Each structure stands twice: as structure tokens, then as C-alpha cells.
């Protein structure tokens, strides 16, 4: 056996080491300290990182990785990006494709007939409720051609219909699960299981954020007390990516972000004094550990936080908008006030450099979201009514501000709905993983196009099938990233948002 006898410590040797420490710092480190001394308060992490980067270059050291200091620092994309920001209108609960954007005259022909006649592969367990499968059911809504492209649009979207020339439709989407939370996970993370990073996390991991005072990835959920999407916070989780990339969920009521308000008894001036004190008191340790860039980053993080206290409430304060803008979105309109505020907030965030914003329309399930198991007509009319004007206004507003070119707007839920009736007092529609419709608009998207087709009744994706992985690959592509190259090493494997699949949908690109 090796010798493991421990030698005792001599107290003198310990102290002699300590005695040396203050008098013998290396000249290089002093240089930086002096440099730091020149910077006043209020220097941003960005500036700091650049400064350290410069210093290291000056000192001839190996390239200094500034992203280690601030993982949210904006990073270059793999290739020139068409879009810099994303606003994802998450049509929560699973919107019915045949009642929204996927016009199916064939369904009128088949109305009332058994779907098994149409497709022998249908099973009663395809949807969620196996004991209430009715016949094929035509849409209760009228469709009419809209825009120059003449897209047939359901009457529930009178405002959005005016923007079809900005939209690229995918009618052949399909996913893995017929159940909300696995399908939500699949749509958000590419995997139907819990625990993987979602799109917003991957995007901020890949590109960082352009906002220094706001979170890079922001999520808004239903503010009307109808709950969170199924699976809760896992839908904006960073999975195994560092926690800094997880979505910041704005609280639906009260202050949107925690800890922005001063503690009772403190004033802005007294906090400023306190932070100055903190900075001074941090000096002793900083000098001792001058090589640790993290320490400086943490000192700076208090300054950033101090600025965020002002910047974040400003970003969330939509009352700063003109009356005209407020009314364009439908603020104070009883039906859509809540969603109007969220869409407007999204625009304000994107304007301020936030990378990825997701807004959930609706809460949990059944009548609380687009999950129209009963009364599909009433359900979809209601939720379309809540969102039609605000989302249309968002597209118009972004366009008139020149932001639409660099902002990708996505309209998509976790799956589609079956073209058959779900038996109920008023017929509904059950979950359908085999077919859904999504649209993209804005940065890099070819407007007025439709890609892929569902079958005659809108049951299954039929032509040019698009898997969730393909949609994700396309989103990353529009943001200038190659989905094959955006990887993270975790437990011995290089993980991707698109796992082992995914192809970019070229026909949708402008």
C-alpha cells in the first residue's frame, strides 16, 4: 500500500505564505487592475468583456473567451441571418387545421361518413377519447379567399386574413404524440419527453441576446387565470443547457419579473450608495484573486441589475405607446385586451433586442385553451376572437416599423385536430398528431406561399410531410444557424435541437 501517512501542518508555514500575498502580485495583473480602476461605475458587461478581450490580446495571451464571462453576449451566427428575433404565438391546446387555415372542400363531401371509410388505418385511439368518435364533420366556419395569393381563410380571422401575403403556410405538419404535454414538449424541444432544452434556449445559446438589460428569452402565458400550458415550466426549460438560457416567464399578474422593486425603506439613492459600498468592499478580495474574471463579472452584474430595475419596467410599460397603437392592437377591447397587451409587449421587447419571445394563447385544456373537445365552433370562435386583432396588429406594427424583416413570427400549436366530430352536446374535435397547420411570417419568409398538403379531409399530412424537427431546422436556418452544427455536449453525446433528423424547408424561404 502507498504511504498515506499525513504530515501535520506547521502553523508558521501557513502564515508565512499569507504574509507574502499582498506584496507580490505580478505586473500583468496590476496592469489590469489599473485598467479597471479607470472605469467608472455603469460600464456594461459587454464593455467589460471587450475590455478584457482587448487586454488579453495586448498581453499576447491566448484568445479570451468573452462568452465565458457573459453567456448571453451576442454571438455571430453560422451564416448571415434573415431574422434576428422570434415571436412565437403558441396556439396552445392544438388548433384545428380544417377550421382555420387548411380549407377542405372535400370534408363537405364526406360530411357525416365514417372516417374508417376514408382511411381504414384510423383507430379510435388516434385521438384522446376513444369512446366519443363521431363521423367526419365539415367546418362550421365559412372560408373565403384573401390577399393577392387568394388563400382561403376561415371567417374567424377577419383581421389576420388581410396579412396572408406575409405568411408562409405549412399544411403537412405532423408530430409524435396525441397527448398535450408530450406534444408540447415535442413542439418546444423536439423531444416528446421531459427534460430537453427548448427552441428559445437553443437560440439564445447559439446567438446570445442583443439586450443587455433584459432577459434574452421571454415567455408569456395566459393572464386570465386559465392556467399554464400542460407540462408547465418544462415548456421553456433549458434542459441540460446552462440555466441562463431558460425562458424568463413573465408573471401573468403583478410585477412581470421578480425583484425589480426596491425593498421597503430603501430609496433609489440609498441603494446607489449601498452598491457603491459593495463595490468598494469587494476590492480586497478582487485584488487577492485578480486572475478570476468571474469576480469582476459578478461585480458588474450588480450594476446591470441596477439598470434593469429601470429598463425592464420601461420595456413592459405599454402605456408609453400612442393611443393609436394601443387601439390598433385592441388594448381595452374586452375580448382581446389581454392578448393585445402581450403582443404589444412582445414588440417592445424585440425592439429592445430580446431574442426570443413566446406567447401562449389559452391556458391548460378543454375550454381553457384551443383544445376544443366540445363545441369546436364556440371554442375556436372565442380564441380566434381573443387573438385575431392583436396578432394582425403585431404583423402590421412590426412591418411599419421596419422590424418585420428581422423578426420571425410563428403561429403554431402542439398538434392539430381530427376532422371527425367528437360526440358531445355541441360537437368538438379531438387531438390529431398526424396533421397540423402552422404559418411563419417576417424575416426571410416567402409570404403568400403554402407548403405541403393534408389529405382530402385534413386527417393526415399527405404531400411533403413536415416533421417538428423540420420546422425547427427551418427556424434555426432563418436565424442564420445550421441545425446540424448547433450542438451541446451532454453526458457524452452532442445533442441537437433536431436530434438525428430535420431538414430545412427551402420552399418557404424568401
Amino acid at each position, binding site marked *: 500500500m502507498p504511504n498515506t501517512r499525513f504530515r501535520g501542518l506547521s502553523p508558521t508555514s501557513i502564515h508565512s505564505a499569507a504574509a507574502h500575498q499582498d506584496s507580490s502580485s505580478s505586473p500583468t495583473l496590476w496592469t489590469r487592475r489599473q485598467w479597471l480602476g479607470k472605469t467608472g461605475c455603469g460600464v456594461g458587461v459587454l464593455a467589460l468583456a471587450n475590455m478584457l478581450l482587448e487586454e488579453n490580446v495586448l498581453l499576447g495571451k491566448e484568445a479570451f473567451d468573452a462568452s465565458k464571462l457573459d453567456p448571453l453576449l451576442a454571438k455571430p451566427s453560422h451564416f448571415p441571418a434573415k431574422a434576428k428575433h422570434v415571436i412565437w404565438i403558441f396556439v396552445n391546446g392544438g388548433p384545428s387545421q380544417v377550421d382555420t387555415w387548411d380549407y377542405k372542400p372535400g370534408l363537405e363531401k364526406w360530411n357525416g361518413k365514417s372516417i374508417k371509410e376514408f382511411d381504414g388505418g384510423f383507430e379510435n385511439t388516434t385521438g384522446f377519447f376513444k369512446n366519443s368518435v363521431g363521423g367526419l364533420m365539415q367546418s362550421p366556419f365559412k372560408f373565403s379567399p384573401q390577399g393577392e395569393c387568394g388563400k382561403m381563410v376561415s371567417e374567424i380571422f377577419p383581421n389576420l386574413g388581410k396579412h396572408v401575403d406575409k405568411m408562409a403556410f405549412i399544411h403537412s405538419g405532423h408530430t409524435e404524440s396525441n397527448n398535450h404535454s408530450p406534444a408540447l414538449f415535442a413542439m418546444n424541444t423536439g423531444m416528446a419527453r421531459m427534460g430537453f432544452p427548448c427552441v428559445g434556449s437553443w437560440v439564445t445559446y447559439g446567438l446570445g441576446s442583443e439586450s443587455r438589460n433584459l432577459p434574452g428569452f421571454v415567455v408569456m402565458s395566459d393572464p386570465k387565470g386559465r392556467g399554464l400550458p400542460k407540462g408547465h415550466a418544462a415548456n421553456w426549460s433549458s434542459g441540460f443547457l446552462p*440555466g441562463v438560457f431558460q425562458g424568463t416567464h413573465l408573471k401573468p399578474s403583478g410585477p412581470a419579473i421578480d425583484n425589480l422593486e426596491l425593498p421597503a425603506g430603501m430609496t433609489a439613492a440609498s441603494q446607489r450608495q449601498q452598491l457603491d459600498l459593495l463595490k468598494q468592499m469587494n476590492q480586497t478580495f478582487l485584488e487577492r484573486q485578480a486572475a478570476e474574471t468571474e469576480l469582476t463579472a459578478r461585480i458588474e452584474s450588480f450594476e446591470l441589475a441596477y439598470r434593469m430595475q429601470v429598463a425592464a419596467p420601461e420595456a413592459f410599460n405599454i402605456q408609453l405607446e400612442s393611443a393609436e397603437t394601443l387601439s390598433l392592437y385592441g388594448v381595452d377591447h374586452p375580448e382581446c385586451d389581454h392578448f393585445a397587451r402581450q403582443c404589444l409587449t412582445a414588440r417592445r421587447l424585440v425592439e429592445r433586442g430580446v431574442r426570443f419571445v413566446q406567447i401562449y394563447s389559452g391556458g391548460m385544456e378543454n375550454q381553457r385553451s384551443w383544445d376544443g373537445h366540445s363545441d369546436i365552433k364556440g371554442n375556436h370562435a372565442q380564441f380566434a376572437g381573443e387573438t385575431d386583432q392583436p396578432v394582425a396588429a403585431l404583423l402590421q406594427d412590426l412591418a411599419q416599423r421596419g422590424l418585420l424583416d428581422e423578426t420571425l413570427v410563428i403561429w403554431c400549436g402542439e398538434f392539430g385536430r381530427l376532422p371527425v366530430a367528437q360526440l358531445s352536446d355541441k360537437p368538438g374535435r379531438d387531438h390529431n398528431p398526424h396533421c397540423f397547420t402552422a404559418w411563419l411570417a417576417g424575416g426571410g419568409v416567402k409570404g403568400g406561399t403554402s407548403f405541403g398538403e393534408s389529405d382530402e379531409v385534413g386527417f393526415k399530412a399527405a404531400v411533403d410531410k413536415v416533421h417538428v424537427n423540420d420546422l425547427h431546422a427551418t427556424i434555426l436556418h432563418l436565424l442564420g444557424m445550421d441545425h446540424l452544427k448547433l450542438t451541446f455536449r451532454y453526458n457524452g453525446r452532442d445533442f441537437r435541437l433536431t436530434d438525428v433528423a430535420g431538414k430545412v424547408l427551402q420552399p418557404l424561404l424568401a
Partner: protein
Amino acid sequence: MRIGKFVETLHLGLISALILLGISPWLGAQQDIEVPPEHAAQMKAGMELFRTRVEKILRDRCLECHGGSKLEGEFDLSSRETLLASGLLDLKDVAASHLLAVIRHESEPHMPKDGEKLSDEELNAIQKWLELGAAYSQPLVEMNAQTTVKPSVISDQERQFWAYRPLTPVAPPELDRFPASAQNWAQTPIDRFILQKLNDLKIRPNATTDRRRLIRRAYFDLLGIPPTPAEVDAFLADADPLAYEKLLDRLLQSPQYGERWARHWMDIARFAESHGYEQDYDRPTAYHYRDFLIRALNEDIPYNDFIRWQIAGDELEPHNPLAVMATGFLGGGAFPTQLTEAEFETSRYDELDDMVNTLGTSVLGLSIGCARCHSHKFDPIPVGDYYGLAANFSMAIRSEMELDLAPQQSAQWKAEYEQRLLAAENRVRDYEQNQLSGAIQRWLANWNPADSESLGPWRGGGVRRIDSSGGSKFVQQQDGSWFAEGNAPAKDVYTVVCQIPAGQWKSLRLECLADKRLPNRGPGRAGNGNFALGDIFIQLDRGNGDVQKRTFAKAVATHQQNGDTLSVAASIDQDSISGWAVDQGGIGKDQAAIFELATPLTLTETTDLQVVMVLNHSNPQHSPGRIRLSWSSLGDLPAAVGKEEVDAAVQTALANLKQQWNTDSADYTTAKAWVKTQLAEYRTLTEDVEKIRQQGPKTAKQKVLVTTEGLPHLPHHADDRGFPHFYPVTYELIRGDVHQRKGEAQPSYLRILMRNGKTEDYWKIEPPAGWTRTSFRRAGLANWITDVEDGAGNLAARVIVNRIWQHHFGKGLVDTSSDFGKQGDLPSHPELLEWLATDLVQNGWRLKRLHKLLMTSAVYMQASEADAVFDAPAQEVDIAWIKDRVGVDRENKFFWKFPVRRLEAEAVRDTMLSVSGNLDMTQFGPGTLDSNMKRRSVYFFIKRSQLIPMMVLFDWPEHQVGIGKRSVTTIAPQALALMNSAQARGYASGLARRLGDISDREKVTAAYKIAFGRSPLEHEIEIGERFIQEQSKMYQAQGNREANATAVVDFCQAVMSMNELIYVD
């Protein structure tokens, strides 16, 4: 006969026949490939027939059960390959095939099983197609890209990869290889390995750091909280050369050690206390796994047992509660709570995957999960090994067990109970021997035999029979009650026919008695044990159609479900549906109600009457199951249960005895038995005995979430959809798709970690005689994974020493601590890792010893500054050791300084609580979601959808998958929390209070000592003092009445926010 059985017999028959002929069955199979000359033309015709006719028949009538969504009878016709492999078909003699026989209904089982027989046209098409060679134009189940299955043999070259090699003893480098100053530096063998690399690179390590920092390091590393100023002072003053070792020994014995290190393992084990997914239901008994970790680490359970218990503690040590609690590990993962039929099986495979994966990354540092879909691209883990591992968990489910968590305590409680019972019984016996006869005599003296009520108010009900409108059959019981047999009808009316003696009758008592034959022991017949008495009244048949109805005016009961529609008063109101019910506390117990007439019923002779009970509540079957009636001439009687009618024999005995007192008479014996029940003192004594008996001994038994087999699974939303929770057979799947089964997977292990010619059987453990509840597959797995000689124990030892190293030195010797495979980093010091692993195993896998070994090394004790000087006179420093260490090894990969590290979320919060003086050290038990709790952070309840915000800010894991190394981020929201959150402000106030009533200057000094274990430098005191004074003035000017106090809190909050508090150097 099922087809599966048939196949089995056929295969066995065929194989044994071939073996008898001396032909290998695999050679025999080759002969199928013989090609007839007309083959191509036939196949083409067959293909055409398949396309035009047969495919549709197979898809419509056969596929679903045979290769589509199911695989009945192991018969798979989804592809030509699987069809031919079924053994049900001989292409050379199609007409005689079993397959044809079953679809022509010439043999059992007739196919299709649940449908009409195929038409002759369809049968002929199939036969023709078979005769043409059974050509498929495409498999009927969509196959993904072909997987190339690696040859299942592990090559010698693959076995040579460093992580898989057997543990090899290594000798530490000789000291005399190094410069003299370095020789002096080295304290342990570890240091010699470290020196070797540094010597190669010509960079020097740091000298030992100062004692103040050393004690902080040790506290944070081992306990996760800072030392108190007194502890720091004591250590600094301890002149004993072994002071530091004594300190380590003390900390390793501290109960807080387990709380610190359990948390590290909880990360790896992806442990949380809720299901995740849709509803994220709590697992309220899951915390026992966390308590297991704390206890096991505190007790220094050998690491191999620590692992073995987590895999199979329920099998290996079923009587050791700690070992059984450990199995919470396997079931700790997230699991959907809402499942559709289409997801049942996939979800179970996902769950098996979670177990296999977590086991792989945590214990072996291997990502095994990739092999679910294809053989691992980088590491030698074939698909078969993956499913072999998964098969060990086939039957494992989450369940709850009652465990005695403190058997010694329980034994003590039992002894105390027995003593108490004995004492109470003795008191009864004493009373009977010494006082009873006197008391009886006194009772008789006061008794007036002429008074009819003197023996109690109630007289027997005189029930002759009970008629039921719903057909219930009643049987009289020994105690005078009547029991309704069989299932209750939805609604009922009981008509109780009684014969009542002459007299005045004022009250009717209805007792509804509990009975173990009733649901929930009754007293009702409804599924939950309840009843609802809609109406009750008396009918008197005077003859000649003169039926009088008498209703009751007043009612009381021992218990009623509510004061409203389910009260006893509601049984005598106008509403015949509302009425007396006894849920909410009364189920399983005897109940009584007393109904009182407004004016007494006066009978001049013995009379037949009927008591009618209407039982028509909208909840079905709400009728009482065992009833007894009694009558009284009194009113205002309290509701009580109990047979109180006195036998005639007793009455006679009492009368006789009153006339002539004789304790030797039979009358005395008879009378005594009754009288003693009337004596308050005696009753109290016997009730005491009964009470003690009923309470039973106190035990430390608690419900514990375990992973085991053969016990009821935790309830699940999809139970009513028929979710089976597990499938007894685990199949090897193609590309992880449950619809594409390759064959049954047998429990096995990773072959790359099976050495010296050993096969699975070597590790398998037979259950003890009589044990049938679990399969003991996991016991075998546990055996293999800790076997250093022939199994995976070599790798397990390397992985754990590396994890411990990582937590002491900021990064592992292998930086990818959960990935020791080909994709992972190579060890920076392979020999050191090997030496440490060997040392661990040779010394009984004790982790505490390992901690001490690491922490007494010079490499651990060295200073953390990048520019610290070497502790040796200049002339002793070898000039060959160059100085620019940052230039050579910027990342400190070779450990030339101690790393400066930020504390983890738990330690950050615990430190702040500790400094604030508010840390509550209560150990164990259920956790909480309350952000304001004062216990250590390891006691937060981990709810997957509701992670504690403060913890998340400081990089708490998401608790979805195992995390071997947390990320460390520095973000503004952390600062915001320290600046503005109620918690941070609370910590600051706590520290301010702790400082007491001293001068501002002294407060600054005291705060530094408490927070950092050091006195402030003079200029620090000045800065602090000036701040408090100026801040006070500012507050004063603002009219703040507690200006100074607020300023001190502001100061303390700044102290709490300093880097020095949460960075260990």
C-alpha cells in the same frame, strides 16, 4: 392452443431433431435459401398478387394483431422475413401449413380471432400467394433506415480503452525525482502524482494557504456552511501539529456532512418529489430517498453497498429500512400522469430508459441511452446490451411500503407499551380482588328492585322479522341485531315487525352497527360504508284496515354527516329523501340514533307494530347493514350504543342476592358479571386497558416511496384506461420503436464490463428459499456493477473517486465526470485516478477516508492565488521551474493552485442563513416549497414544475435528467435577488440583529468576523463606518425614524452580497 405455444413446440422439436442428426440448427436454417429455377418469375407473380389483393387482406384482417400494433402469439407477418421465421409455414408444402389450417378454420385457433372467417376468394388468394413464394412488395410496417447492428462481440481493442481496463495498482512516483523544494512540498502520495505532471511542464504549485482560508475551505467542502468566528479562532489557536486533521475528523463526523454530500448525489440521481409532465403530482413519500442519502453518507456506508442498495436494497436487505429506502433512486425520474392507450408501452420503455440511463451516467459515467435506437456510435455498447440491462428492471415499479425507520426506537416503544398494559391490567385485577365485592354490596344496598328503570332505560326491540321492499334478506345475530345479507338494492324500504309489551313507550333507539362483512366495515351497505335514512316512523295495525302512523318529534345521534340534509333531524322531516348519514368520521364505527315521540305510545297489551325505514337516497345502496332496535319509556336520553337490556336471570340473581348476601353462591357470580359493568370506577379501569390495547405500541413506521416488484403500484390517472404499469417481458426493439420487436431481451449486463470469461450467470443471485415477490434480477445487476474483479466495479470506483475529487477541486481528473466513454475527456492524471480508485476499493470503499486523503494533500491545501509565491527560500527553488504558470496552463488543468469557486445554490443560501443567525438545523422529514423556510436548502421540496426561484437563480438543476457538473452562471437576476428580495433583506436584518448594541465601528468588525471569519482591514472599517453614518444621515433627512438601524441593515446586505462570502478560495 395459442400460436405462440405452437411455435415454441415446433422450434424445440425442430432444433432437437437437428441436434440428434448432428446438424447445427443454424446450418439447417440455411437450407431454406435453396432457389428453384422458376424463382424469379414466381416471385414477380407473387408480388403482383400481393400488391393487388393480398396486402389489403393482411392489412385489414391480420396485421393489427400480428406485427402491427400488437404481436399476438409471437406471430409477425409484417415482413416476409418475419413471416418465414415464424415456423408456421413451409413454402415447399403450403397446403399442409399450420398457417393455412388456422385461417381455413381447420385447426385451432381459428383466425382471424375476433371476426368473420376470410372469404373463399380471400383464402385462395392467400394460398396462391404463399405458393408463389410469399413475396412482399414492401414490409407492412414502415421500417426506418436500416440499422447496422455492431457485431455483438466486444473486441480486445475496445477492451483496452482506459476506462474499461481492470483496475491496476500503481505506485506513486518516487520523491527523489523532484527538486528538493518540491519534495518538501509533497504531503501525500497524491502530491507526488501531481508533482510529476507539474515537473514535466516545469511549473510549480502554490504553497500552503493560510489557516483561516483552510478552515473555510474545509467547512464549505464538507458541510456547506461557514465556520463560526469561535470555530475559526479555536483552529487558529490550536498549536497541535495534528490540528488540521482533528478538524477534518470533526467535520466528517458532523451530521451536516451528509446534508452537503447527499445534495451532490441528488443532482446525479435527477431526484425530485413530483411526477413532472401534465399535472406534476407530488410524491409525498419520496423524501425518504433524500434522508437515506444523508444517513448513509453520515454513517459512511461503503460506496459499493451505497450503490447496491439503490439498485436492489429491497432484495438484498429487505429487513434493513435504509436499504429499502435507497430504491427511491430508480423511480426518481419524471413520468407522465396522463397517458393514452397509444402511449402506454412507449412510456414504459421511456421509464426503463430513464432507469438504465441514470444508472449508466451516475454509477458508470457511461451514456448508455444511445443504444436504445442503435448500437452506441462511440462506446462498445450494442443494442442488445441496452435491452439486456433494461430487462433487469422489467417488473420494477414505484410503490409505497410501510417501513420501520427506527427499529430500536420502536422496540423501546413496544417495551414501554407492554409495561403500561401490564400495569393497567394489574389495576383491574387488584380492584377485582380487593374492592369489587364491597362495591357490589353497596350497589345492592342502593338498588330498589321495585323501580323498573333502575337497570337502565332500554328494553329489547322485540323484533320478529324485517321485510324489505328491495328483497334484502335479514338474519338475526347473537347480540340481538339483524344483518342484511348480500348486495344491497339501489333503494329499499325496511319494515321492522316488532312485538312490544304493554306499557308506555316514549323513545325508539335505532343502532346501526359496524360489521366486517360490510364495505369499509359499514355500518352502511354503500361502497363507502355509508347509509342514509330518508325517513323513519311507526305503523300500528289496529285491524280492519285501521293503520295508524306515528311520527317522531325529536332525534339525536352519536354522529351525523352534517347538520343539514344528512343530519338525523332530516330523517323525521317532511323530505323523505334527506336523512341521517354518517360519513365524515363515522364510517366503520357503531352508530345510534334516538327518535322520540311527542306523546308516549300507550299499549294496554302486547302489541305488534311496524317500524318503517325509508332508504331512497339518490346515491344507491345507502341502507344500513346491521340494525338493532330498543325501546324506552323515558325521554331525553343521550345517544349511545350498547346492549343494555338486562337478562331475566340477572334480575333474579340481583334480587336473591339483595335478600341474602352470599359471595359463594351462583347468584353472586351471575350478579357480579353484570354489576361490575355498572361501577364507574371499574369501568374506568377496564376502559384504560382497552384504550392502551387499541392504541397499540407507538412505532416509527412510515410510508416510503420505493422501487420494487410485486407490490401495488402508485395510483395513476390512466389506471382506468387499463395502463398496466409494466410489461413482464422487455423486448429488444428496432430503433427503439415498440412496434418493431426483434425478440425478447434477457436480463444481462454490459459486456464491455464483463471480464475473465464470466457470463451473466456468474452474477445472478437466486432469491432465498420461499422468496417469490421479486425476481432478483436487480440483485444480480447490483452484484455485477460493484464487482471490481470481473464486473463493472473497476469503472464504478474510478467514477466515484473522480466525482469526489471534482467537488474538492472544482473539476474532476476526468473533467467530464458523467462521461468516461470515448466522447469524454481523458484523465489529466490517469495514474493518480487509478491509484485513488485502487485505494478506495482496498480500504473498503469508505468515502470519508477518501475525503481526508484528498484534503490533507498539499495540492488541496495550497493557496489559490495565480501569483502566490512558492514557500521556500529562493535558493531552494529549482530554476528550471519557470514562473509563468498562467501562460503554460491557464485553465489550471494540472492543479498548480487551488481553484477559486463559487458556492452552489444550496451553500449560497445556507451560508446567508447561517451568517444571519437564522439557520434551523432540524434534520430529515418532509420538505417544503416555502421560500422563507429556515432549514438547510436540501430540505426544499423539489417539485418539478415549481422549482424554488432563489435556487434556480444560482444554477439549481432542472431535476429532469442527471447532472454531473452544475453550470455556474453570473447573471443580473442573481444580483436583483440579493438587492431586492424579501429573503435577502431578511438575511441582512438577521445579521444586523446579531451584531447587537455596539458602536458602528464595532459592528463593521463583528460583521466581517461572522461573514468571512476574518477581521476587516483598517480601511475596510473606515469605509463601512462612514457608509453607516452617511446612510443614517440620508435616512434621517428623509424622516426615517430608524435611520441608523436601516443603515446597518443596508451595510449587512452589502456584506451578504460580497464575492468573499460565496466564493471559496
